[in-house]
């Protein structure tokens, strides 16, 4: 489902009106399925046994892991849209990466916050400069920077193109940051490398996790499409206001 949507977004849906039509039709369905999956996922989450070592806190994992995964997927979606902006100059691609940035920041924040909550009872500290934590934190900063950049410019078309360049540069850089932070960590504190993946996951935990992951992914796409729709509406309103202003100027 997500894949086919991405394809239509770049090739078939040449005009925003068709996108709006499609969005209106599929949004209720996606929202419904998301809600059902969340209900099942949350039920399984609380029905499953607590880990004998971690106790109740293991349930944080069902929110933390999908959020962390989405924080990265959202950036990939933005990078794909950025290519759409720069290569095909498609206005929907502009809207797509602009709408995705706050979502990415939100999911990253959720991942960081739940990770921190999980870390306190497990590691005895809210935060460690572990490789993975550090690179996710950097990702969070990049999301915020991109949002700030988009807000700092008046012309939405130009803002989209310029932030697309930065998104792509950031995209090639994220693996490097990840890799270098890994290295840095092993160089300096080889003894205290903390393994986030913990014990190999049991079937008991796997099912709820999987369902929650799908639910989160659907939630992301639902929100993304809704945010894109809002952005298109916003631009239509501003275009009409400009038109009104210009027309008033002509009559005067």
């Amino acid at each position, binding site marked *: 489902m997500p894949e086919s949507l991405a394809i239509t977004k770049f090739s078939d849906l040449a005009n925003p009106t068709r996108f709006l039509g499609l969005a209106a039709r599929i949004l209720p369905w996606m929202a419904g399925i998301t809600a059902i999956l969340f209900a099942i996922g949350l039920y399984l989450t609380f029905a499953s046994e607590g880990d004998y070592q971690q106790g109740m806190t293991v349930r944080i994992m069902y929110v933390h892991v999908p959020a962390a995964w989405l924080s990265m997927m959202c950036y990939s979606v933005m990078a794909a849209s950025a290519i759409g902006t720069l290569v095909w100059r498609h206005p929907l691609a502009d809207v797509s990466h602009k709408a995705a940035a706050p979502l990415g920041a939100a999911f990253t924040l959720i991942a960081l916050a739940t990770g921190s909550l999980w870390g306190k009872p497990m590691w005895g500290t809210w935060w460690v400069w572990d490789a993975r934590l550090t690179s996710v934190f950097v990702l969070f900063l990049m999301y915020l920077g991109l949002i700030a950049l988009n807000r*700092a*410019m008046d012309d939405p078309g130009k803002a989209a193109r310029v932030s697309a360049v*930065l998104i792509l540069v950031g995209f090639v850089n994220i693996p490097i*940051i990840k890799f270098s*932070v890994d290295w*840095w960590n092993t*160089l300096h504190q080889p003894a205290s490398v903390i393994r986030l993946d913990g014990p190999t996951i049991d079937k008991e935990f796997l099912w709820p996790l999987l369902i929650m992951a799908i639910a989160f992914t659907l939630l992301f796409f639902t929100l993304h499409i809704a945010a894109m729709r809002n952005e298109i509406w916003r631009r239509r309103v501003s275009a009409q206001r400009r038109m009104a202003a210009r027309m008033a100027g002509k009559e005067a």
Partner: protein
Amino acid sequence: MIALLLRDLKLSVRAGGGALIGVLFFMTVVAVIPFGVGPDLNLLSRIGPAIVWIGALLSALLGLDRMFQTDREDGSLDLLLMQEHPLVLTVLVKCLAHWLGNGLPLVIASPLLGLFMNMSEVAIGATMLTLLVGTPALTFIGAVGAAVAVVLPRGGLLVSILVLPLAIPVLIFGVSASYAAVEDPAPFMPPFLILVAITMFFAVIGPIGAALALRNSAD
């Protein structure tokens, strides 16, 4: 292209001493650190390479947002954009000139600051060498930010925020190589070579990204 290099170098020397301000900022930042962490010489010599590197990183960022801004203000940027030398090459040459004018003075000033930090000779040499190799990468990364800053009316600070995360790998390997030279078990070459690789990588990505941003931000 040589003409462009020479022009930018001349400007960086004549126009209000941008290089001098960078070095002064570098020294001030490093001088402030002992006030913060206390004048314990052992501690300072231990954190010295890291402090010098962070100081260099901040001062390298200081002058970067002006890289294309001055050319835009007097209209030269338009003429530079109209020529396909190609544009990526033009940007690369501007980066080199910027580094020679602003980055190299930092490298030259670093041994003095190393002495202030009570670092050993080996550590000073290693830090200087890593700065020599690493600061060009900062300039190349910053070029993307500088190209973006061209369209931002008050972009300086925002550009620093956007560029700093990208500079993390350079900082990590620059500092690890400096430490590896002093501390025994860790070998110096692997992090140093990775630093070289990162610089070369950004020598490609930086100008391409900056050229793309300049092309897309013209108005």
